[in-house]
């Protein structure tokens, strides 16, 4: 069957499934809307958390990042999984014991401060909105590439689906849909990986294939072969470190505590029945995430090897060893159309040369062979996962599946984020601060309106992405790492922290992180207002703006501790509350005040 028809069928079927679940899992109380009535089984919650967490970035971008950065991309693998260890041991069980609906609500109650609650709401909305814009764009791109409809049409279709099941079902509907989306996305990710691993190494398990010998009978290990192929063309070795060590450590740490501090992830642990379920559920979430995250390194390395071998078909500098442009495969033409892949015949020989023209040691070889520079002038790393099945010449149904998987990843994350935004508006701002007199029924209506509003705002930014959308992802993690995570952790582990300490700590962590990011990315991301050069030699001690969250968190801890000890102890009932959340016994059902 033709690829496009097949893609329509597969994506259409997955949408039909989400709709059926939405109607079946409608929410009728605020507890169902915010926390799915606290009735989700820990394994099911783990699966939903995995889909919630793994976005278009994990599905589409991460393997591409690994393919081109090699070992250095390990920071994302360790950072985005190691955060769950912190979440499981430092936050999830205690916040579940506390038994409320939102993250700002805990901060407001624990630090008996409306200011603290509002600071938390602002952090939550900025971090979540930033994230959701990226998802919306991912949905539009996936639609336009695979279904060949205009970008806008794809975006509207995605918005309509999310609108339907999130407004109707709240957390309950979102959770059950996310479980289905996880199944779709993990299937779509691993199937092509298994095929490619079999082709290259003869081993069907990608995690083992990456450490195996090539299937071509040469007896060479795949990773050694990749190092060799890249080295021959002047690129740095795949398995070797290229960036600074301090930056790698801080970036990994920032991603870990940022992950543990992201509200849309934390609130998933409010939905399980018991404290002990919150602990094991984090483990299940990590199992389901690890399935994709341990496959990604294999996908990245194998995609890179396939790409290099497609273009450089024989020994470097041999006469007939480069792919002729006239013989380029279909996927090459398809991606050229999107502008994400660009070729320029610099030496006019009609063939494609792909090598590192910035390498001095390789310059001589290149000159002798008559090469006049790298002719693959643009290879967008985001295309690697999507183009991977085509490069490996896999059957059409696999390619259709990848399209459905990418869309599932983006939809599930968008829904989780929108829910976090909507619940903090209706529960923290309206019910908790400005309109405490509204009834539960009214609050439920307001949360649905807030959800509808959030979908529209996200859709608007998806259509008109602000120029700074890509840069602010560092900000989302920076905010979560430097303000929310330390406040939550100290709220549980340090009884002595009072309202003044917490607010001062959050503002100091947040402020220092914002200043550092703005120094390099421009004040409020306005182009031309950056004061320092955003490259490794311009960074203070080699710390990139994205890695500063860990430093901001340290500042937050230090300031909160110092200010709290200089001022009065928190009141008696707050200290009792902290003692109470430290033991699991007595965790009740959902309560909203």
């Amino acid at each position: 069957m033709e690829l496009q028809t097949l893609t329509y069928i597969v994506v259409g079927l997955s949408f039909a499934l989400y709709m059926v679940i939405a109607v079946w899992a409608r929410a009728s109380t605020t507890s169902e809307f915010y926390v799915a009535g606290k009735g989700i089984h820990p394994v099911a919650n783990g699966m939903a958390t995995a889909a919630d967490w793994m976005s278009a970035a994990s599905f589409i971008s991460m393997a591409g990042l690994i393919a081109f950065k090699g070992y250095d991309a390990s920071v994302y693998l360790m950072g985005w999984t190691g955060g769950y260890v912190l979440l499981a041991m430092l936050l999830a069980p205690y916040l579940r014991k506390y038994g409320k609906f939102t993250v700002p609500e805990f901060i407001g109650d624990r630090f008996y401060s409306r200011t603290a609650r509002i600071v938390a709401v602002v952090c939550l909305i900025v971090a979540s909105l930033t994230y959701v814009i990226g998802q919306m764009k991912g949905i539009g791109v996936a639609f336009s590439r695979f279904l060949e409809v205009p970008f806008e049409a794809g975006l509207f279709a995605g918005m309509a689906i999310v609108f339907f099941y999130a407004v109707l079902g709240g957390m309950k509907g979102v959770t059950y849909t996310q479980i289905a989306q996880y199944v779709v996305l993990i299937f779509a990710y691993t199937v092509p990986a298994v095929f490619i691993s079999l082709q290259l190494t003869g081993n069907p398990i990608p995690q083992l294939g990456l450490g195996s010998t090539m299937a071509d009978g040469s007896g060479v290990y795949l990773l050694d072969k990749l190092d060799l192929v890249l080295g021959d063309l002047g690129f740095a070795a795949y398995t070797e470190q290229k960036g600074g060590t301090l930056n790698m450590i801080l970036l990994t740490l920032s991603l870990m505590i940022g992950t543990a501090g992201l509200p849309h992830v934390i609130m998933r642990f409010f939905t399980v029945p018991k404290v002990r379920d919150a602990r094991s559920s984090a483990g299940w979430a990590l199992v389901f995430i690890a399935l994709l995250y341990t496959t990604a390194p294999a996908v990245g390395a194998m995609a890179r090897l396939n790409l290099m071998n497609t273009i450089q078909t024989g020994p470097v500098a041999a006469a007939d060893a480069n792919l002729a442009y006239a013989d380029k495969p279909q996927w090459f033409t398809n991606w050229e159309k999107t502008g994400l892949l660009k070729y320029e015949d610099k030496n006019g020989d009609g063939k494609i040369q792909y090598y590192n023209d910035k390498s001095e040691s390789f310059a001589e070889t290149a000159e002798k062979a008559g090469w006049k520079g790298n002719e693959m002038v643009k290879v967008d790393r985001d295309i690697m996962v999507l183009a991977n099945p085509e490069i490996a010449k896999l059957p059409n149904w696999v390619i259709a599946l990848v399209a459905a998987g990418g869309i599932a990843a983006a939809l599930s994350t968008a829904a989780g984020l929108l829910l976090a935004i909507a619940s903090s508006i209706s529960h923290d701002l309206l019910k908790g601060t400005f309109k405490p007199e509204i009834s539960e029924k009214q609050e439920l209506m307001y949360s649905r309106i807030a959800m509808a509003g959030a979908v529209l705002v996200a859709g608007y930014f998806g259509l008109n992405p602000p120029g700074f959308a890509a840069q602010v992802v560092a900000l989302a993690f920076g905010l979560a790492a430097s303000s929310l995570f330390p406040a939550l952790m100290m709220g549980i582990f340090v009884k002595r922290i009072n309202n003044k300490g917490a607010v001062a700590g959050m503002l100091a962590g947040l402020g220092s992180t914002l200043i550092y990011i703005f120094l390099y990315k421009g004040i409020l991301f306005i182009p031309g207002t950056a004061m320092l050069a955003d490259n490794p030699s311009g960074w203070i001690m080699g710390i990139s703006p994205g890695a500063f969250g860990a430093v901001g968190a340290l500042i937050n801890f230090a300031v909160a501790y110092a200010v709290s000890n200089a001022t009065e102890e928190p009141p008696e009932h707050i200290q009792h509350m902290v003692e109470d959340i430290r033991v699991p016994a007595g965790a009740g059902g959902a309560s909203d005040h």
Partner: protein
Amino acid sequence: MTSDKAKDYWSRNLRLVLGCLVVWFAVSFLFGILLVDVLNTVQIGGYKLGFWFAQQGSIYTFVALVFFYASKMNKLDREFDVHEG
């Protein structure tokens, strides 16, 4: 629960968390980044050991660690009789 018992429960919990975090730190920051060059001199199949920890081993250890913590805590809860009904 008496306050002595509560203190005891909490300090046992803290010790467990600390132990787990030492392992968490070792497999990622230590084996995956700081000692990566040393470990890379050891080869397991096609993987250099340091590279393996950074892209595979650390993640497997994280999963095991969370389940280990959860089961230890469940035991501790029952020992101190603070588990849920």
